[in-house]
């Protein structure tokens, strides 16, 4: 039973980090980024490419089945993924913004983009699943009868560090404060002398960085698969909505809740329907309490 909870939390972390990127795009850029799952995929594949390039294998640190090579590759993946995302924004979304395109146009563009990215990955890396590393689900006794898989603990720790870093970024740094202003009212933010274009770039970078981490962790815990973005997008949206669209921490909470829900489904032998269960919860929230757990009622704008 405990293992299901831990699995739920581990998967939940990945969904949470991805959902944060989704939340930032939603609140600052004001559209639902259907390509967010593919940003996680890019992050994962970049890490893989770097590990292969480095040629030293994945390493290990004590009982954990990955070591500094993976961490280094994550760092580089963050940079590469951010650059890729900024390039895509510059070529596509910036043009749509200049034209004051409708929200739907942005979403359709994101759909098209996700299709392109998914298949570029297939083109370059082949359509088969690959193993980033060998996640060894061997539980180690911690105290008494309580056993835990060391990799799982590290994933949770990394996620916790990311969330804390995000929080301090948003509350203490100037850029973070500017982001919150733009999320609330972009025109008023401009009138306050805030360079909204710069804030938009930062938003993409933060989202891409967290997604790169999430994608790599997902690839480590499961495997690399060109379809991974598609598999993750619905749980991420569910997390966003359940946690509360307007609140970035809601996305984190939502991520863990969805992760636990899916683990619960697996424990009840319903793993084929995991996606549908997360989705059903999302629909219920949308109907009964559209602002989610931590969100606020939105103005329509």
């Amino acid at each position, binding site marked *: 039973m405990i293992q299901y909870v831990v699995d739920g939390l581990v998967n939940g972390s990945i969904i949470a980090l991805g959902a944060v990127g989704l939340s930032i795009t939603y609140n600052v850029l004001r559209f639902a980024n259907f390509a967010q799952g593919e940003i996680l995929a890019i992050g994962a594949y970049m890490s893989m490419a770097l590990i292969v390039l480095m040629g030293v294998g994945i390493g290990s640190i004590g009982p954990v089945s990955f070591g500094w090579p993976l961490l280094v590759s994550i760092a580089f993946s963050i940079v590469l993924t951010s650059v890729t995302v900024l390039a895509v924004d510059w070529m596509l979304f910036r043009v749509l913004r200049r034209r004051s395109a409708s929200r739907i146009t942005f979403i359709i563009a994101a759909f098209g983009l996700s299709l392109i990215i998914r298949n570029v990955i297939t083109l370059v890396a082949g359509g088969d699943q690959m193993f980033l590393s060998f996640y060894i689900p061997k539980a180690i006794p911690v105290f008494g009868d309580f056993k835990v898989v060391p990799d799982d603990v590290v994933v949770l720790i990394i996620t916790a560090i990311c969330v804390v870093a995000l929080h301090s970024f948003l509350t203490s740094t100037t850029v973070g404060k500017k982001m919150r202003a733009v999320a609330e009212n972009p025109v*008023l933010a*401009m009138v*306050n002398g*805030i*360079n909204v274009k710069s804030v938009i770039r930062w938003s993409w970078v933060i989202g891409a960085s967290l997604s790169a981490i999430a994608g790599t962790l997902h690839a480590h815990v499961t495997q690399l698969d060109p379809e991974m973005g598609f598999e993750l997008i619905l749980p991420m949206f569910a997390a966003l909505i359940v946690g509360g669209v307007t609140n970035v921490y809601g996305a984190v909470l939502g991520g863990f809740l969805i992760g636990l829900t899916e683990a619960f489904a697996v424990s009840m032998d319903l793993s084929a329907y995991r996606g549908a269960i997360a989705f059903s919860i999302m629909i219920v929230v949308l109907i009964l309490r559209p602002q989610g757990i931590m969100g606020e009622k939105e103005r329509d704008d």
Partner: protein
Amino acid sequence: MVVPYSDISSGRELLKVSNLVAGYRRDLPIVIDVSMEVYEGEILTLLGPNGAGKSTLIKGICGLVEVMSGTVVFRGVDISDLETHQIIERRVAYVPQTQNVFAKLSVSHNLDLGAISNLEAYEERLENVYILFPDLWKFKDISAGKLSGGQRQMLALGRALMADPILLLIDEPSAGLAPVLRNQVFQQVVEIRESGVTVIMVEQNARAALSVSDRGIILANGRLRRVQNAKELLEDPEIAEIYFGPGPTGRVS
């Protein structure tokens, strides 16, 4: 039609608008060929009927609306092609008519954001704003959305002052306020000018606004109709009939 005026505080030209054409869409200009000068230290009111282009004109000055032709020169620099945040950094401040505070953030948070483009002497400016608007100090931790109309207007003005502006553009400061509060706002505008800020305001309450202004400019259908000393405008019977109407608020027919 420009009539000679006097009683301007310093006479130095701060802002020069030349043949400005501006609007939200290229095929639909709202401001048509407007030229005007604004002098340091004055309070200038823009008047005219609804849809005359007054709000669009000040939005054009601060870059929120596209300048299609003509120029806007502020302190000798052409700002017509600059982005809004760059213009704000040059110490122009703008107070929109609606959505002029961050409703979900507290009063003090709003004021902080006002200073975010220019963090020098932040403490001093914050103190000055609280002196000018004591109510804001009282409610400094309340979220802006919960303030009354009058208090929100004060916050909107205070936020603009946090950037230590040289030129302040205000869009209908007295809109939606009860008469007592209206006069209070205009008095605050005078105090702001006393501290060395030049003010351009758009107003529908023509009579009350002109009574605290140095000059008035009348726009109609996107074009400049009159530039004149405020006192002369107030006393001109023809203007009074067209723009001030039967009641004291000066509604245009």
